[in-house]
């Protein structure tokens, strides 16, 4: 990791871990069809609308900041997306679910149904993307309620772990998670842990609103 030279405007582009995985598959799933923009690293409390030098200087503490190089982990990039909303929007859409922590027992199942606040409807018409950070910890991740080719494609993919902690994304108005039954992920006797930790990222496909929720999976089988 390092800083980018901000004396000139350049673009530092890399493939993500997910991109490399899809490229290696060679089945056309890598094809780039859409983009999003984000303001990761920006702290808007640095914006100073009271700057005595005038409005041209309100953002000077932000515009001069050096930026870090891109991270290959798709989980660490494009966290805070820029969204297109009508002018005069006073409150930003936010996504919420009932719990601030998802607890699952080994092989346990739960269905997550997010709601969007400050938006056209509580359930977004295009649905939500649900991304689990470590696919190894689940025996199934299924999106429900959206019948589009993209959503069906993602649901039809079997979980391929390849033994590494790659992410898995599905699309739906809700998402059903089933925790893994594999005990070896918890480690060996002695150094074994009783809980696996991962993260669920929910993004509203219409609003761009985003929520991250920790997931804890508790071991139920004897080590």
């Amino acid at each position: 990791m390092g800083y980018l030279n901000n004396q000139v405007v350049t673009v530092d582009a890399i493939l993500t871990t997910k991109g490399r995985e899809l490229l290696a598959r060679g089945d056309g799933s890598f094809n780039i069809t859409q983009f999003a923009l984000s303001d990761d690293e920006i702290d808007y409390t640095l914006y100073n609308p009271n700057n005595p030098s005038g409005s041209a200087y309100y953002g000077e503490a932000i515009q001069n900041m050096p930026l870090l190089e891109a991270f290959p982990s798709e989980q660490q990039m494009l966290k805070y997306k820029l969204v297109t909303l009508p002018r005069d929007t006073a409150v930003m859409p936010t996504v919420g679910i009932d719990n601030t922590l998802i607890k699952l027992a080994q092989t346990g199942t739960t269905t997550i149904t997010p709601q969007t606040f400050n938006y056209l409807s509580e359930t977004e018409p295009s649905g939500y993307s649900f991304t689990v950070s470590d696919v190894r910890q689940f025996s199934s991740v299924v999106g429900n309620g959206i019948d589009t080719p993209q959503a069906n494609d993602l649901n039809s993919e079997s979980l391929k772990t390849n033994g590494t902690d790659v992410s898995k994304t599905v699309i739906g108005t809700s998402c059903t998670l089933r925790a893994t039954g594999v005990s070896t992920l918890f480690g060996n006797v002695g150094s074994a842990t009783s809980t696996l930790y991962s993260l669920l990222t929910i993004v509203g496909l219409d609003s761009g609103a985003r929520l991250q929720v920790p997931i804890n999976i508790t071991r139920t089988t004897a080590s």
Partner: protein
Amino acid sequence: MAGAFQILDPRDLIISTENVSNTVWENDSPTLTNYYTSSVQVASSTGQFYYNIYADSNVTGSIQFAIAYCDADGSGSLEYNPNVDGLSPTRTNFGQYRSLILGDEENSFVFGNQSASYFYALPVERSGYKQEILPGTMTLCLSGSGNTEHLYLTDDSKLGGAAVFTEAGRIYNLVSGSAGNVYTGVDSNGWTVNSGSYGWFMPDIGTILLNGPALQGTFADGGINLGTGRNDNTADNNPLKLFNRLNLGGAASTNAGWTLNSQENLSSDFVFVRARADEFNYSTNPSFISGSNGAVVYDNFINDPQVYITSVGLYNNNQELVAVAKLSRPLLKDFTKELLVRVKLDF
């Protein structure tokens, strides 16, 4: 229109291939003037077949190229089995290159107008030449034993004749000269007087062959009197002899060492990302809102939001993030500004 994802217009995705030439040797140096071997490698079983050549005395860097002596009669090295005449590492080398370059075992190596039954192969490390070595850029300096007479070799690709194609792709003759310019002081073709050309320059397999008889001749005949040993069932250490002449050539006062360039075709995806004036003007960044109700952090952001773009995410049809581009500094975006970013992905 609302949302965070924008579908790319097919015209915003361009695939392009560009031709890139570069240096071959370690540290991006165009010329290699110091050659080193590894005593461990030379003493190992592979040392019977070839010597690896390094650019620094600690031989900790990457291998630059190798020297392999090849002999149709198996001379110059110990036989695998004294009871089986002629089968030795140098014979194995000869067969390997004959199979690779000529294909048919009935064919012989004809350098210029003379066939040769022994030669030196110098395969360049793949990481150095990438896709191919670039014809017309090479100057290789070999020295006579006294380091007073220097022989400069290049390829004849600039003469304009079509390359000869073999099982190993294009072949050009190695001739006297530098950087593709032929020296005709000894022979009108840049060859030796009696032994044909100095060998072959094969860009597609990143290898040059040095014609043994050509180097064996006197300086007046165009050679360097190399002294290649062709004794039966004897370790003549011929790669060492060429290695020594390379090192002397690396200390020459003009055009010292080995100058060589690589070439590769680089395929790139260009993605043109456009954010129009009325798009992407609000942020889901937690510091953009205040409190828990989602209200924007400053009142003037309601009518005139100011956001700062730092990253571009490229997604596939399933909205999986496959590539990211990071700007070197934040770019201000509001309802009066448009953005066009060109993202280049190399493969």
